[in-house]
């Protein structure tokens, strides 16, 4: 029996008086690649913010890898890896110096060997001693994924991971995400706008509309409900917007 990696129970969050999330309830089993879809402002990044302990929900409970985000935030952080949408580093420092810093903050005492392994895994060897400030977006995303994987997290949060990448970059990152999941059994929670990425990567999806979860199911079920070539696109528009499906 598969246990739950991420659970949200009636989570609500407001910015001032404006609700960003309303009664979000969601269970994601271990080993899933979950894609959270929604228009701009739907509440995707707020959801990731709450699950990664960067934000505190106004109400409701959330659990990541068996730890409550409110009462055991440190344990949650020890269990997760996080790749923000526009990952940035200390530009004056090299890849190795940046990764050593983040690895040590994650509790790794002598992280150099592990950094070498992870850089090899993400296909970014040979740039250890180059300053991050000189890297392209695609290169930074690889370093970003490396920093998220350093401490072998049980759950990986990716916020728009392919945003701004060229087609080669998108494909390379997609393959890495699938490998992380397949080789390490890591549960992956991914925010994205790209429906094509969801169909190629995710095993289950959720659709947010104005802070409310309007759809949650496996990719097969979702696509099965709209048996056409552009099934997911039709499912998305039917759930997430007022546009005709």
């Amino acid at each position, binding site marked *: 029996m598969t246990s739950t990696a991420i659970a949200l129970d009636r989570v609500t969050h407001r910015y001032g008086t404006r609700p960003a999330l309303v009664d979000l309830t969601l269970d994601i089993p271990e080993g899933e690649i979950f894609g959270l879809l929604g228009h701009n402002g739907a509440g995707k990044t707020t959801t990731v913010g709450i699950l990664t302990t*960067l934000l505190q929900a106004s109400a409701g409970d959330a659990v990541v890898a068996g730890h409550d985000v409110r009462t055991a935030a440190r344990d949650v*952080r*020890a269990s997760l890896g996080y790749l923000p949408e526009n990952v*940035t*580093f*200390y530009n004056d*420092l090299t890849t190795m110096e940046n990764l050593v810093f983040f690895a040590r903050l994650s*509790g790794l005492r002598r992280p150099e060997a592990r950094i070498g392994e992870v850089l090899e895994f993400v296909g970014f060897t040979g740039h250890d001693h180059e300053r991050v400030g000189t890297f392209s977006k695609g290169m930074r995303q690889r370093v970003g994924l490396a920093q998220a994987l350093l401490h072998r997290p049980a759950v990986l949060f990716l916020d728009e991971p392919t945003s701004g990448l060229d087609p080669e970059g998108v494909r390379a990152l997609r393959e890495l995400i699938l490998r992380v999941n397949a080789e390490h059994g890591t549960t992956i929670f991914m925010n994205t706008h790209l429906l094509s990425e969801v169909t190629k990567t995710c095993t289950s999806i959720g659709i947010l509309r104005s802070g409310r979860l309007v759809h949650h199911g496996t990719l097969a079920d979702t696509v099965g409900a709209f048996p056409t070539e552009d099934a997911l696109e039709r499912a998305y528009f039917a759930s997430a917007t007022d546009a005709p499906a």
Partner: protein
Amino acid sequence: MSTAITAARHELLASVRAKAPYALVAAFLGMVAASTFIGWRTTVTVTAIYERVLADGYTTQPNPFTDVSPLYYVRNTVIYVLLIGTLMAATLGVQSALRDRKAETAALIGTRPVDARALRTGRLLGLGILLAALVAVTEVVTWVSVGLLVGGPLDAAETLRIAGFGVLTWLLLVGFAGVGMLSGRLLHRERTALLAPVVVWAVIAFVVPQLGTAARPVSLLNPVPLPAQDSGAFAWLSHALAPIAITERFKTASGALLGSPTTGSAAASALLVALFAAVALTAAILVRGTRTQGVPHE
């Protein structure tokens, strides 16, 4: 502890890469050079005039510089530390506090299992080491410069006095670095964060002493503190505000170490400078800052 050490190493590395220490070393060496030159030139000029006056038979008094400590040459350094060093230290503190926000790495740090206070302690430790190295270089240069002027190495007592002045300078600078870090953590905009310590500095260095020594405000820019008014409201204010007139306390304690005429207790003054550093550092570590994770509201 390991978080603090990691943060301290990172602080040192990031500061060195940002080239901040080079500017500080240049500024401090410039201060020592200017101070030593002014001290030497003053001594030479006054002595030359004195000898002419003595030869003309207009005085029988001894040369005012006879038996004056050679450290008197560098007494102006006290003022440079107050006017330039403290502001540079505060700027370092602000930059340290803003580094994650500017590099947009706050979210990466915020999702790590670290204690925020340990992180801040480490950053202050890094700044403390940086400032200690800087002060040490400056004091070595001071020791060599004064030695060259007097034509031989300084004796043990004078060397200890220079070391003591270095420790006192370090305490004051670390305190202002703490003020800068606190400002960077509490204020969202960089410009405001940089301005706030300048205002604090101006109040401590000029406004507070002015309330007690307004009759002779020129003393604020001189290395030797003048006695405060000894009667009336100024006397009362002077006594009441003395503990927070940290720059005046620094001048008093430094003056005693460098052989300048001083008023008040040097030991008590040094203790108050240390207390200021302790309070500023504790506040920088313990006071909760503004939200820094930089997560967009989506």
